[in-house]
């Protein structure tokens, strides 16, 4: 009840309840706010089933791969399946950077597609811990071509695992953020290997260049302070946490997924508190940093690379990781690219230049494929924070009439907005 009151107040503040028919009613025009706060509940797609039954399924992708003691709980690759009783299309959904199928956005998409009559398989991002430990061939994510091959492998295995139980008419594919970019690469692989013959592929707020987008997100932290030191960051972060404690009381339980920080801001925002721009940017940067830290540490241990944990050191299941966490939190994605991903890739492919690696993790490397594949559709926003101006121009030019670009929404902030969901579902229904 109280919750509904906030929403009402919030929507009145924004003046979002009315508006002429046909106009785009998503009114949050600050992309930093929309990226964090998302869509006010009153404006969300309201035809979601209340509850979706799903099965949590496990796969042994590499049966001979030992699980390091420190990651003893990552024994198999996990994914979820929600299925219809009758024959229906099957859609694969790929999560954004560092996210699993438990992420709020993933659960939303699962419900939306299931409610619209699809079988739904939700896949964690190749940058997420469970994926890196159990399903990544190299355990060193970030090379989008290789990550997409890993994705294709688990999709094929998952399909093998469930195909006797569900009746599938045709296959679809979607993903948001980095998962959106990966959808395009997976689609290209499928055109060669033809396991699924995807009928439609929808990219939602994809990164054009992984390197550029990661740099933009890394630099968000510098908006807290251009000369950010760990001490300044810690002080800033402690202040934010103190504010959030208030929000935690209002939330039933602190949400403990990696974007719990966003959730706390949502609650504060509903109460009418608008944080300063540098705090918003700082929080986006922090959430990205936490996700990339999880990825970097996991990759470092799995590949025994020796970036943060000494090479050849074996960590036990009860060893303290706190000090490693402190170091990892100071490693940016670009540091990871320069000090780990690039030298690692070069050791396997001696002639590789850094520019070539950057290029190969960009949608530009498959430009002609994107140009000539009518089944691939794009949904994006003019003010998407992870795109440089030339990236947006590239998307518009390459996709032409297959691009639906909304004027507002930031990075994925309008993904649950009713018009956007209607558009997404419509893509697959036609």
């Amino acid at each position, binding site marked *: *009840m109280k919750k509904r009151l906030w929403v009402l107040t919030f929507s009145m503040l924004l003046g979002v309840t009315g508006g002429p028919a046909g106009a785009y009613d998503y009114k949050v025009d600050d992309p930093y706010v929309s990226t964090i706060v998302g869509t006010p509940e009153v404006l969300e797609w309201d035809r979601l089933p209340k509850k979706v039954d799903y099965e949590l399924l496990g796969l042994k992708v590499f049966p001979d791969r030992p699980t390091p*003691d*420190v990651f*003893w*709980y*990552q024994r198999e690759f996990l994914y979820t399946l929600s299925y219809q009783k009758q024959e229906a299309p099957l859609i694969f959904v790929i999560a954004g950077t*560092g*996210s*699993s199928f*438990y992420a709020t956005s993933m659960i939303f998409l699962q419900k939306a597609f299931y409610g619209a009559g699809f079988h739904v398989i939700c896949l*964690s991002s190749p940058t*997420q*811990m469970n994926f890196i430990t159990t399903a990544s061939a190299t355990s060193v994510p970030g090379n989008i071509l290789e990550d997409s091959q890993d994705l294709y492998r688990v999709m094929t295995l998952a399909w093998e695992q469930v195909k006797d139980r569900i009746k599938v008419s045709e296959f679809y594919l979607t993903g948001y953020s980095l998962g959106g970019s990966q959808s395009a690469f997976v689609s290209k692989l499928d055109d060669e290997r033809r396991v699924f013959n995807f009928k439609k592929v929808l990219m939602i707020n994809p990164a054009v260049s992984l390197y550029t987008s990661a740099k933009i997100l890394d630099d968000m932290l510098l908006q807290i302070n251009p000369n950010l030191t*760990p001490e300044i*960051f*810690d002080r800033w*972060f*402690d202040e934010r*946490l*103190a504010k*959030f*404690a*208030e929000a*935690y*009381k209002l939330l039933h*339980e*602190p949400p*403990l*997924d*990696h974007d*719990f920080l966003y959730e706390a801001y949502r609650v504060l925002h509903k109460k009418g508190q608008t944080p300063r721009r540098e705090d918003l940017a700082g929080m986006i940067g922090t959430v990205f940093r*936490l996700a990339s*830290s*999880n990825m970097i*540490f*996991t990759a470092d*241990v799995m590949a025994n690379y*020796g*970036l*943060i*944990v*000494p*090479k*050849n*050191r*074996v960590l*036990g*299941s*009860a*060893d303290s*990781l*706190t*000090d*490693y*966490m*402190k*170091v990892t939190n*100071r*490693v940016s994605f670009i540091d990871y690219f320069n*000090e780990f991903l690039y030298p690692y890739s070069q050791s396997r492919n001696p002639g590789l230049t850094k520019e070539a690696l950057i290029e190969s993790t960009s949608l530009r490397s498959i430009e002609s494929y994107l140009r000539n594949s009518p089944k691939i559709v794009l949904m994006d926003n003019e003010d998407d924070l992870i795109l440089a101006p030339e990236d947006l121009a590239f998307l518009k030019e390459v996709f032409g009439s297959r691009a639906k670009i909304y004027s507002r929404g930031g990075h994925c902030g309008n993904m649950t907005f009713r018009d956007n969901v209607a558009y997404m579902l419509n893509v697959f229904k036609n």
Partner: protein
Amino acid sequence: MKRALCLMLLTAFIFLSGCGTAPVRQEPEIPAKRPVGEYVKPDVTYAIDAHDPWEPMNRRIYNFNAIFDNYVFLPVVQAYEFVLPVFAQKGVANFFRNLTEITNLTNSLLQFKIEKAVNTFGRICINTTVGLGGLIDVATLNDGIAREDEDFGQTLGFYGLGPGPYLVLPILGPSSARDAAGLAVDTVVYSLMMQELIGLTGLGSPEDDILNYSLSALYAIDKRHGEPFRYFKTGSPFEYDLIRKLFLIKRQFQIDN
């Protein structure tokens, strides 16, 4: 029953302790490119730091809890959710929440939080009578009187006692030396009240072990049923650290309010 449980706990501990001593790689260690020694200053307190001198034991118990959750606790809870209709699950939850108001009441009084005490007393009266012995939470309906969670750990904190070392309790999860002691006190008060109630209502004899165990088991199942937390769902290799930090912040906030 109790003995079987102890044995199981013991076995699990030994098994988990075993996990820590893995075969060591043959190759010599090579220093990391970004070594801890260079990046972490011993004299600086970082945001993620906590007073956790029992960390190795705590981490083992944390891992044990995850295994126990996976193989024992959650399957039992799932069976409970499968067997009992949703309205009955709600009834059970409300019933125990009404009984545990005794903890909120005593601790509100101990901290002289009169408004909270009055609210809690009002809730008990309404829910026990109109709410049919606590099965329905009538008091909360229509923006009525919200529940005020207070416990003895918070009371101790209110009088200035710090949390002491962080402590992960078997099965129950994150706590601290102070909060664990508080929990023990709250549990004694609750049990005494239950003994009285069982006697008064004529449900059975207060010495009836089967009745006591059944009630405790149902209480535990209901509590887990209402708790959305799942181990290792964060997808972070640093989950232990994150949970520790959040728990301590949350407790401090509860004490301050």
